[in-house]
């Protein structure tokens, strides 16, 4: 039967959270994602789940909500949450005055989320902690923030939704909203891998498509405006600094450099865009803006090795005539029955990663109200898959004779499920062979991502396992992973080559913007290996 209580559109952090909440409250739920889970803004963000200090003055309620959500996420997704200590580098007297308020409000909020208090450090103290800081700083403020692996968050949330009965359909695009007498009764979807179209019926359609919310609404004859705002990140090959660094950008905004997983991430820009969000691309100017800004606080950043540049589009609430930074990060749930007279359609505007669960709760409350169901939200209580227990890294490392590094990387993604993945080695020890050497991803983990986490393409495997995200950017793992994907999914050689090329094309995207230093050698190596030796430039699909 293709009739549901709720149809969720969008597989980002918000969409998956909605599907999870609906399913946990006993609603028959299906989620459609046009590409892969976390392939939009969720996958392009820095993963910071900020306690919301920034909003404490203007929007105290929202700041409270952020703080609360950090605690919830740390509880339900503890294995993918990590704490990063941060130094805000202050370079001028004028800046010091601006930051003062921030320091004041921070204190009260930190106590609530059990974080360490803010500390003001002299340049000497700060540089002792972080020698890469510029000698020109006049002061540094120490605090910390929590971060989450945004890819894993979306995948685990979707997995949890599935465990509670929801259906998750990736690579399935909503091409039309079915409407009769002013009432939405379902969607028409196209499977992007097979091209097959079908109609799916539902009592409520929730539009959680992020930057694509207006596009979906248009299908229902509803006009909706967002302030689409592009943010670009520069990714480095190593952690660069031990502390996260925040400093003032050239235009007075703030930019950050965060050690992240095995690398570092520098961001971000904020540029309003008026084109199709699919066409948003990082530019040379953005990269230079970020580097030139961070250079004031961390002079060596210019010499650091850039492995990639990426961008995402923030679906901000349409507040204009103020800078992007002043636009509320709070969210708005739109009941289109109330606003536009279109029954059965709900959408969500704005919001940010940290409040994805809270957004889902509010939306699901509305869905339940409309369906006349009474069920309490439990999404903040039940752990996500992998967060249920503790992992003994040493024990696993010894038992399977795998390096502690490999086990700890695996556990940072899979938590308590690591044990199950490593158990494959009991019947076939070769399953622990590394496919991606930069990120220490084993064959067993890739197969798990294909079989149990909707991994359909190499890009999907990258998002789930971090395969191909290291300094070599897929050079040494792409072909190995393509062979495994082909085997698991019964792809022909020709199909596997197409997949391999698509993956490498995506990896190389940032190169046409910036390719510097030793990354050039990596680039030449990839060119030589895949074209000169691998003939990927001459593997045209065969005719039948």
């Amino acid at each position, binding site marked *: 039967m293709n009739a549901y209580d709720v149809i969720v559109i969008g597989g980002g952090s918000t969409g998956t959270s909605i599907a999870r909440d609906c399913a946990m409250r006993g609603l028959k739920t299906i989620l459609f994602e046009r590409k892969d889970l976390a392939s939009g803004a969720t996958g392009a963000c820095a993963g910071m789940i900020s306690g919301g200090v920034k909003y404490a003055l203007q929007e105290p309620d929202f700041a409270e909500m952020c703080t609360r959500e950090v605690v919830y996420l740390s509880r339900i997704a503890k294995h993918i949450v990590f704490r990063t200590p941060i130094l805000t580098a202050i370079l001028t007297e004028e800046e010091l005055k601006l930051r003062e308020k921030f320091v004041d409000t921070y204190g009260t909020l930190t106590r609530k989320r059990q974080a360490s208090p803010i500390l003001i450090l002299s340049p000497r103290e700060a540089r002792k902690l972080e020698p890469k800081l510029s000698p020109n700083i006049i002061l540094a403020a120490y605090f910390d923030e929590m971060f989450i692996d945004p890819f894993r968050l979306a995948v685990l949330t979707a997995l949890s939704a599935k465990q509670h009965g929801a259906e998750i359909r990736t690579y399935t695009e909503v091409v039309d909203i079915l409407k009769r007498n002013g009432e939405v009764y379902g969607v028409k979807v196209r499977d992007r891998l097979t091209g097959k179209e079908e109609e799916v019926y539902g009592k409520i359609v929730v539009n959680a498509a992020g930057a694509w919310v207006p596009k979906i609404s248009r299908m229902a004859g509803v006009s909706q405006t967002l302030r689409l705002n592009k943010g670009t990140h520069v990714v480095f090959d190593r952690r660069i600094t031990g502390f996260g660094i925040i400093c003032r950008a050239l235009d007075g905004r703030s930019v950050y450099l965060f050690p992240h997983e095995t690398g570092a991430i520098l961001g971000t820009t904020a540029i309003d865009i008026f084109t199709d969000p699919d066409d948003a691309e990082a530019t*040379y100017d953005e990269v230079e803006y970020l580097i030139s800004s961070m250079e004031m606080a961390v002079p060596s950043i210019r010499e650091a090795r850039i492995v990639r540049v990426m961008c995402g589009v923030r679906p901000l609430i349409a507040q204009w005539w103020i800078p992007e930074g002043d636009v509320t990060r709070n969210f708005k749930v739109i009941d289109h029955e109330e606003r536009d007279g279109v029954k059965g359609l709900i959408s969500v505007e704005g919001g940010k990663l940290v409040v994805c669960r809270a957004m889902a709760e509010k939306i699901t409350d509305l869905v339940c109200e409309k369906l006349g169901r009474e069920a309490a939200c439990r999404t903040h209580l039940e752990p996500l898959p992998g967060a249920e227990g503790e992992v003994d890294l040493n024990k696993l490392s010894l038992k399977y004779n795998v390096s502690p590094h490999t086990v700890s990387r695996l556990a940072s993604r899979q938590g308590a499920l690591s044990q199950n993945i490593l158990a494959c*080695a009991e019947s*076939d*020890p*070769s*399953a*622990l*062979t*590394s496919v991606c050497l930069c990120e220490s991803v084993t064959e067993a983990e890739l197969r798990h991502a294909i079989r149990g986490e909707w991994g359909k393409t190499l890009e999907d495997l990258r998002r789930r396992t971090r395969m191909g995200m290291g300094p070599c950017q897929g050079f*040494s793992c792409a*072909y*190995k992973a*393509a*062979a*495994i994907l*082909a*085997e698991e999914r019964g792809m*022909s*050689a*020709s199909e*596997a*080559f197409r997949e391999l*090329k698509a993956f*490498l*094309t995506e990896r*190389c*995207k940032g*190169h*046409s*913007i*910036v*390719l*510097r*230093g030793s990354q*050039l*050698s990596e*680039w*030449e*190596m*990839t*060119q*030589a*290996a*895949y*074209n*000169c*030796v*691998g*003939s*990927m*430039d*001459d*593997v045209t699909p*065969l005719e039948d």
Partner: protein
Amino acid sequence: MLEAEVLVIGGGIAGLVAAARAADEGLEVLVVDKGSGATYQSAGVVDVMAYPPSQGLFLNPLKGVEVTVKTAPTHPYAIIGRGNEEESVRRVKEAVEYFIDLTSSGIRLEGDIERNVILMNTIGSFKVTCLAPHTIFNGKVDDLSDASLLIAGFRGLLGFNPAFCASGAEYIASKFNVNLKEAMYTWLSHPRLRKFNLTFIELARMMDDDEFRKELGEALRKAVAEREATHIALPTLGFESPEENMKVIEEEADVKVFELISPPPSIPGQRMVKILEECVRKRKVRVIRGYKAAGFREENMRVKEIILESGEKKIPVRVGACILATGKFIGGGLTEEEDMVKEAVFGLPVYDGRGQPLDERKIPKLLVRDPFSQQPLIACGVKVNPQMKPLTLRGKPYENLFAAGSIISGYDYVKERSGIGVAAATGYFAGLNAAYCLKR
């Protein structure tokens, strides 16, 4: 202070061929090599020309050279023949034959400079090239007509999946109209091999072991009998003695055996560097490893001295002539500064593939988005005159400085599959011209 009649900067194919050729002329040659460059990472086969600029696949490499000379006047193949097709073809042939002869004591290179062949690789696709070590050449796709091919993998070997290679073999056979009867695969294991994360070099070293290769042959005999295979493909046949290992396994298994080409880390590439180095040492060429050329001193357009550097240590070398064979980005001959391409040792001006100076052109402008299209950046490098002397900012070249290999602009070794061909040809003439310049 060290002294050398000819100092070659770079220990890849181009540098070592140049060194050998200069030594043949009775000169005292010193090679400085900072570490493993592109040759070390290469497939270890001899590409001459398969896809000439803006053309499809050419089955005759020399015809490809001819077309190149006609259509691309700034290509090194055109420059060495001073634009004359016949002269270019003659010179390329002479240089490649010299290379075959030079390495013959260590590698039995098979093939014909007038015929490209299709060889299977470990990633499941193919490579077009013209000469290859005997152990690899035995697997050319043409020879697999009516064959029942068994691809043997090793459990836990990093980066080799025989199941996928078997499906790749079918793709290759149908692409090149070869009537391959069957492509099968088998997984091997051996108590002496690591159970997972087994590297190619570990396996290659094991292959060189007398007992191991015999046991492997026996295991393969069983697999062959079960599957009725006629050919066996292996990911490597060893590091020290591939030829002998192949013979032993062939005798045991009683079918034809060959090894596949592989992307880095490639054993045949590593074998080639090692053998070439042995061959030049036999010619009394000295090789210094671990040092890079960090600076130079010139007088009246003659290079007088090169400063070698390793960490804090600096050694000046007084030189008669110098050959720049530093490669591109992998080798370190080209570097980046403020998004522009720089020549690392002499600060020579860098040109694009059409012979135009790069000037202020930034790297992103030399790249196209599709990584499978021709990348203008690959063809960038120094510009040489027919004597292989690179042009300087002052317009005229240094009298005693020559260039060889991929530091030279005007060709795209990735697209053309012309890497070793150009390296050998430019190395050969750079070595010879350096000798002439000193004798005069």
